């Protein structure tokens, strides 16, 4: 772990960007860029970040950024990585930075292709559980019971476990992170930078607008997600799976998991199901199943 004082002070995300107040994704991007450093090329498909950069001729991101079509984040990153290889540039990291819509739904074929080809890229998905930029429509990442403009009575399906789909691709590095733990996120990007091949990091970034909570609770909500077990922090490297941060403490029994209702009740998006005991039990069941699966997977990979 890295302490706050040891964090690099250089900022590659500049103040005055267009993110909403309390944006979780910008905490994540700030620390991802701190970890990867100046020698990075970013590919950003249509997502919040392509708006957040600001208006031409200015940008808030102090590394080269390519704005590309929605489905093409991973394939463009593959192309850049191949170009760098042809020119014998070795110290540059290629980062594809996409939202959950551009990863779970629209970009998954390009991502799967890049993983299969073994291209040397880091693919980071900041997951705010909806198409936040276009007005909060449901995506493959929206959890069970959550309100969006296209699921007004709460979503009836569970989210797609994309991190496990990527794990199945047998790539060198897969990790999950959360905006509320920038130090954990920083360490994961730092580690991913040194590894060659396709790397995938999935970041839960609480969104005050889509999740319907006050802007000052971003970090608190992220912490509650991990504490309730609704979001699990882990990393897979060298054929081994490790829990990290608070999830490690929960897995070892040092930290008690809080009931998921504590996490749901702070968010307006779960209002349709908050009094529905069956739905809460369904969410709890899913969380327990996920934990059971991850623990078994950890044992199996030992």
């Amino acid at each position, binding site marked *: 772990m890295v302490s*706050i*004082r040891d964090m690099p002070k250089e900022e590659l995300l500049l103040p005055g960007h267009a993110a909403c*107040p309390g944006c979780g994704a910008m905490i994540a991007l700030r620390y991802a860029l701190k970890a990867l450093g100046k020698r990075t090329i970013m590919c950003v498909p249509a997502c919040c970040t392509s708006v957040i950069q600001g208006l031409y001729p200015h*940008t808030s991101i102090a590394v080269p950024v390519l704005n590309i079509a929605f489905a093409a984040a991973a394939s463009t990153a593959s192309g850049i990585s191949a170009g760098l290889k042809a020119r014998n540039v070795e110290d540059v990291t290629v980062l594809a930075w996409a939202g959950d819509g551009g990863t779970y739904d629209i970009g998954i074929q390009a991502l799967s292709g890049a993983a299969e080809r073994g291209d040397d890229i880091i693919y980071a998905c900041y997951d705010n559980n909806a198409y936040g930029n276009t007005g909060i429509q449901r995506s493959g990442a929206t959890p069970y019971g959550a309100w969006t403009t296209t699921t007004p009575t709460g979503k009836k399906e569970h989210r797609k476990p994309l991190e496990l789909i990527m794990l199945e691709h047998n790539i060198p590095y897969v990790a999950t992170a959360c905006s509320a733990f920038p130090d954990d996120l920083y360490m994961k990007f730092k580690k991913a930078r040194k590894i060659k091949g396709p790397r995938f990091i999935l970041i839960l970034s609480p969104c005050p607008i889509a999740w319907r909570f006050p802007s000052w609770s971003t970090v*608190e909500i992220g912490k509650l997600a991990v504490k309730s077990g609704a979001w699990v922090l882990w990393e897979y490297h060298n054929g081994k799976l490790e829990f990290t941060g608070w999830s490690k403490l929960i897995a070892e029994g040092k930290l008690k998991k809080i009931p998921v209702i504590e996490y749901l009740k702070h968010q307006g998006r779960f209002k349709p199901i908050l009094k529905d005991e069956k739905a809460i039990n369904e969410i709890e069941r899913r969380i327990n199943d996920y934990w059971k699966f991850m623990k078994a997977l950890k044992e199996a990979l030992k």
Partner: protein
Amino acid sequence: MVKDHIILPVSKPTEGSMGKTGLWRTFRPVINYDKCVKCLLCWFYCPDIAIKIRDDGYPEIDYCYCKGCGICWHECKVKAISFVREGEEVG
């Protein structure tokens, strides 16, 4: 005639690419330096990079770019930051 160069729309990294985003603020965080213990948690969590570290190690809020989300006020462990409506005094 063949052009020997292509003109691309390239943006340059600039502070305040969306202008002075501090204008979006309705509430304003104010640091009480008597209570501040220099833990830098406010700097750590700020999504707008609007908190700078002074030479003496204390954080300082850049009101030009602070959007007033209140994360620093909410996360401050020693309650050294107060959150006041714009135009009102601390207290």
